[in-house]
């Protein structure tokens, strides 16, 4: 895939004059697995793997890029080589070849559980490099640079914008509108082993599953339009049930019971990790009490890292 150039997209001085780089900072939020993941028809009629992410704004990664006169990019921590590669790709995209500097990543996102830690590093690094050059990158350019830096990318370039994101191409199959409906989530981890996402076998979906994804995509669109947490929760539960046939989460049946008991809108899971969550309508009756009840029950059932967070609910409950 080739990053798309557009006139408004950082191509400010292509005349070869050495541009001054300054210290640049970039950030990216994490995600909390998916609300929907499967295969979906693109505009050309071909099927593509794609997902609708649950944003997790309370966890994020920050990248800082200090340019120097050299031509290589050093990175700390040293294992974040994809983020370093993303800086080189971003500078080249802007028209700055063979520039270097120091990239530092600070992240509060745990690795390997499906929070998108790797993509968050890459997105933050792209934004730090662009900021260093005084360039503004569109979300779509950021996403396609991220795909070039890592083979598959999460939808984090789109932040809190709901999109159906083809994570192997870095393109958007559908824009679902301005924002997610307000959600309150009790998150946890189902299973403890960290997963190397890129080494997982790809799910082979059956024809009935593929047709079901089509309907779920329609319901997701309606849920965004109506700002309806209940409909979106239903999308997430059914997507989790399909995922259960491909990457089973231990204790899933128990989770379905817990969701019913606490009157959650649904269950969402990371389709390629261990993260999962119960999704609630933050405006529903007794939601604070039910969130606490859910957290206690999950903790009691042995699920780890139980936390709660909100999406678009106007702050903590």
């Amino acid at each position, binding site marked *: 895939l080739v990053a798309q150039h557009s006139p408004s997209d950082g191509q400010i001085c292509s005349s070869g004059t050495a541009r001054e780089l300054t210290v640049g900072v970039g950030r990216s939020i994490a995600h909390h697995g998916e609300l929907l993941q499967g295969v979906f028809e693109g505009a050309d009629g071909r099927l593509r793997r794609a997902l609708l992410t649950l944003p997790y704004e309370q966890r994020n990664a920050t990248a800082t890029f200090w340019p120097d006169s050299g031509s290589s990019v050093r990175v700390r921590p040293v294992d974040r080589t994809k983020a370093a590669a993303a800086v080189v790709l971003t500078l080249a995209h802007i028209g700055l070849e063979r520039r270097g500097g120091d990239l530092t990543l600070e992240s509060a996102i745990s690795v390997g559980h499906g929070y998108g830690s790797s993509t968050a590093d890459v997105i933050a690094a792209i934004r730090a490099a662009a900021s260093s050059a005084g360039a503004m990158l569109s979300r779509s350019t950021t996403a396609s640079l991220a795909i070039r830096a890592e083979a598959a990318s999460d939808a984090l370039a789109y932040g809190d914008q709901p999109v159906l994101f083809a994570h192997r191409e870095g393109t958007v199959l559908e824009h679902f509108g301005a924002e997610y409906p307000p959600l309150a989530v009790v998150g946890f981890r189902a299973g403890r082993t960290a997963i190397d996402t890129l080494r997982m076998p790809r799910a082979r979906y059956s*024809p*009935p599953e593929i*047709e*079901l994804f*089509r*309907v*779920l*995509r*329609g*319901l997701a*669109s*309606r849920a965004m339009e*109506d700002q*309806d947490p209940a*409909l979106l929760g*239903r999308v997430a539960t*059914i997507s989790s049930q399909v995922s259960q046939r491909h990457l089973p989460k231990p204790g899933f049946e128990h989770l379905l019971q817990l969701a019913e008991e606490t009157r959650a809108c649904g269950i969402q899971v990371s389709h390629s990790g261990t993260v999962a969550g119960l999704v609630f309508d933050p405006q529903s009756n007794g939601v604070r009490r039910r969130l606490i009840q859910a957290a206690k029950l999950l903790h009691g059932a042995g699920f780890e890292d139980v936390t709660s967070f909100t999406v678009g609910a106007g702050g903590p409950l």
Partner: protein
Amino acid sequence: VTPPCLSRYLASYEMPRFAQLRPTLHAACFPLMKLLPARFMLDRAEASGQLDARGHIAETTSGSFGLALALLAAARGHELTLVTASGLIDPDFKHRLEFLGARLLVASDIGGTGGQGARLEMLKAVLAERPGTFWPHQYDNLDNALAYSRLAELIVRAIGRVDHLVGCVGSGGSLCGTAGFLRNLFPQMRVVAVDTHNSILFGHSPGKRLLRGLGNSILPANLKHELVDEVHWVGALPAFAQARALYRGQGIYAGPTSGAAARVAYWVADRHPETSVVVIFPDEGYRYQQTLYNDTWLDTVAGWPPRLTGGPRRVDRIAPGGEADWTYFNWRGRSLEEALADV
């Protein structure tokens, strides 16, 4: 290979428009619903190698499924043989199919029940004669029902939650396919099936049916009785009258099966005013200009005009009524065997 512009036209033609009949009652109005499953079945057959690029297709049908296949076969360059019955095909429709290049084999149908047995034998002879022929087999091909994911998607995009789904049953594909997907999304949704007297689908013995395009004299695998909460048997007269009222009142020029479905859907919407009701209208009225939209023809139909009764008569025994009757039965998600054993 189908030119993309052509396939895009047919892809758009296979989808319905929505009509809001009441604040909570929406109708999905298809110009030719059968295009949706026909296209999907051909796509899947091509993908799995059951149908070659210029391969031969054969099916037994006297209805709009044949027209859908004929449109697709012509556009995609397939040969098509349709087996039909003498009592069920008028000269205009026959000409439309033949204009598209379809070869018609007509079985005689003296009893007026559709001659399914004789037609099946003729079809099997065609299949034996031409190896490699693809038989879509709409009654038993599960891709028929699967095709309706597109309708389910469109309904949830346009309307959101659905509490009652009302639709006719012939092959079972449209109602059970759509209901299967929507029930997964909305587990409380009620499914209301519309059939006609003397159709065996929900336990009547086979007999002559004046209302065509729904009902059946054989049992298709695509009918999942367990999905159905309530069955209505609508006679031809109330179906014709309702179709005419739809045209005059709403500008919806639809076939008689849409009339039957609308009759039931209005009644369901009246009984459950706070719920969201969706009804499927399978085709347009052009094929019926010389029948239900023709007053001279209607005057020859015994019992026309029907008395406009308020609603259906609930029955506890499964038995056919006359063409003026409209009855219903609480099916309650039972299999055919269970329901028949219980009554």
